[in-house]
C-alpha cells in the first residue's frame, strides 16, 4: 500500500537515512498501521468540527518584558561543534 518510493520520499522530508533493509521493513510496517488507520474513512466527518485543543484556554499572551538570556557559554555548552561563538554546521552544499 505504501511503496518503496513513497517511503523514500517521506524519509527525505523527515531527514532520515534508511538502509535498503530498513526501507523494506518500514514499507511493510507502515502499510500495516495505515491499514488500521483507514478505519477513519468509515466515518462521515463532513459536519464535524476538528479539535486541536481539548481544553478551552483563553489566549495566553506574554508581556513584552525581557528576561536575562543564557550566556554564550551556556548556549553552546551542549553543541557538537562550535566556532566563532556559533554553532558550526557543514555547508548545505559540499
Amino acid at each position, binding site marked *: 500500500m505504501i511503496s518503496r518510493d513513497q517511503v523514500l*520520499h517521506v524519509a*527525505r*522530508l523527515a*531527514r532520515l537515512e534508511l538502509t535498503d533493509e530498513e526501507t523494506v521493513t518500514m514499507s511493510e510496517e507502515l502499510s500495516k498501521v495505515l491499514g488500521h488507520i483507514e478505519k477513519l474513512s468509515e466515518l462521515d466527518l463532513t459536519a464535524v468540527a476538528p479539535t*486541536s*485543543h481539548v481544553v478551552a*484556554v*483563553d*489566549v*495566553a*499572551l*506574554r*508581556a*513584552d*518584558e*525581557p*528576561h536575562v*538570556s*543564557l*550566556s*554564550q557559554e551556556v*548556549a*553552546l555548552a551542549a553543541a557538537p561543534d562550535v*566556532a*566563532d*561563538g*556559533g*554553532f*558550526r*554546521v*557543514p*555547508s*548545505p*552544499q*559540499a
Partner: protein
Amino acid sequence: MTPAVEYETVIGLEIHVQLATRTKMFCSCGLGFGEEPNTRTCPVCLALPGALPVINAEAIHFGLMIGLALGCKLNDRSIFDRKQYFYPDSPKGYQISQNEDPLCSGGELGGVRIHRAHLEEDAAKTIHSGGGGGRIQGSAASVVDFNRGGTPLCEIVTEPDITSAEQAGEFLRLLRTTMRRIGVSDVNMEEGSLRCDANISIRPVGQQELGVKTELKNMNSFRFIERGIRAEVARQEGLLRAGEPVVQETLHFDPRTERLTSMRSKEEAHDYRYFPEPDLTPVTITPEMLERARAAMPELPAARQARFADELGLNPDTAKLLAWRTELGDYFEAALAEGDADAVPLANWTTNELVQRLGADVDPAGSNVRPAALAGLVTLVTEKKITAGAGKTVLDKLVAEGGDPTAIVETENLAAMGGAEELAPVVAAALEAQPDVAARIRGGDMKPIGAIIGAVMKETKGRADGKEVTRLVREQLGL
C-alpha cells in the same frame, strides 16, 4: 507584418517587517542589535528539548496596528501553524507562522490591495565561513547565530496589483513611512528590518490569465528592487519574444552586475506540512485589544499628505515630503503651532533650506534649530524685516549655534534697511561713484543696474531690498 505584442507587467510583493518589540515573538529574550553571537538566546529560541513558545502580546498589538494602517479586516480568531523545513537557521525544524487563519485579511495602501498580513518568527543568522573564501557556493561550513532567531515579523502580502518597478518602489516607500509612522518597526532595509520579495510575471496586454511568475528574493534597497524588477521584466519579455517559456523559479539579483541568477532549487519541492501549532491556542482578539490598537494609531502619512495639501495649501511634492518623513512633518507642525509663520513659506524653508543644511536623514528635532526659531525666522522674512538672503545667514547661525533669530538679526546687524530715507544716500553714493554706469542707465540701458545694486548690497551687507534699490535708482536718475 503583424504589430509587435505589447506586454504588461504584474507584480505582487511579500514584505517582511521586523517588529520593534522589546522581546522576541515567542520568548522573553531581548532583540539583538549586533551583540556577540548567541548571547540573546534561551531554551525557547534555541529550541532546547521541552521548551515551549508563548506569544508576545506586544507583537499582536503591533500586528493589529499594521492591520489598521493597511485597512485590513482584523480577524477575531487567528491561528499559528507550524511551517516545517530543515535548515540550521530554523532550530525547531519548523517556523511558527500563520497559514490559513492570519491576523489580518484584505486591505489597501496607496492604491495597492493587501491580500493579508500575518505574524511569524524570524530565522537565525547563518554565517557562511571557511572553505573557498567565504563564498556561499564554496564554503565548507557555516556558523549559526541565534540572536536574531525568533524576532517578531509581520509578513505583508499584496495582491498582484503593481504594474511597474516604479510603482513597486513607490508602494514600498509609502509602506515604509507608514510602518515608521505607527512606530511598529525601524523598517531599515540595509539592516534587514524591512525585507521584500517580488513575484513578477508579464502577459500580453488584454490577456486575463496571469503569466508564469518568478520570485525575486531578498533585495535590500529600494533602488535595487526597482532595478531588479526592471531587469527581470526585460528578461521575461526577451524570453517570450524569442518564443521561449518563462520557468517558475526563485531568482537573485546582483546589483553590481545587474545579473539575475537562479537560486539553487532545494532538492525536492517544498512540502511544508503545515498544521496548527499544538503548543499555542488560537489568538482571540478582545474588544480591549482592538481599542488599544485604535487608540495608538496616529494620523497616517497618506492622510497627512492630503491634509497638508488640502488644508494648508502646500504643493503636492512638499506635502508628500513632509507627510512621508514623519519627523520632518512633526517638526513642521510644531513650528507652525509655535509661531505666526505662514504654512507655505514655513514648509518651503523646512523642506529646502533646513533639510539642505542638516542633511536628508537628520531629524531636525535633534538639531540646534528649535521649531519656534524657524517659525520666527520665516516670519521675519515674510514680513520683510530681513531679506531672504539675510534669512539664510540667520539660519546658518541657528544651525551652528541655536538661539533666537531676532537676537541674531540684532547682533549681526542684519535687519532689512528701512525706507528710502536710509537707503537713498547709499544709492546716491553708488551712482556718484560710477558715473558712466549712471549715464548708461539714464540713457535707457537697464542692464548695468546690477553693478549699482551690487555696490549698495556690499555697502549694506545684504540688508537692502533689491527691489527698493531699483526703485530708488530710477527715481534718482529721473526715469
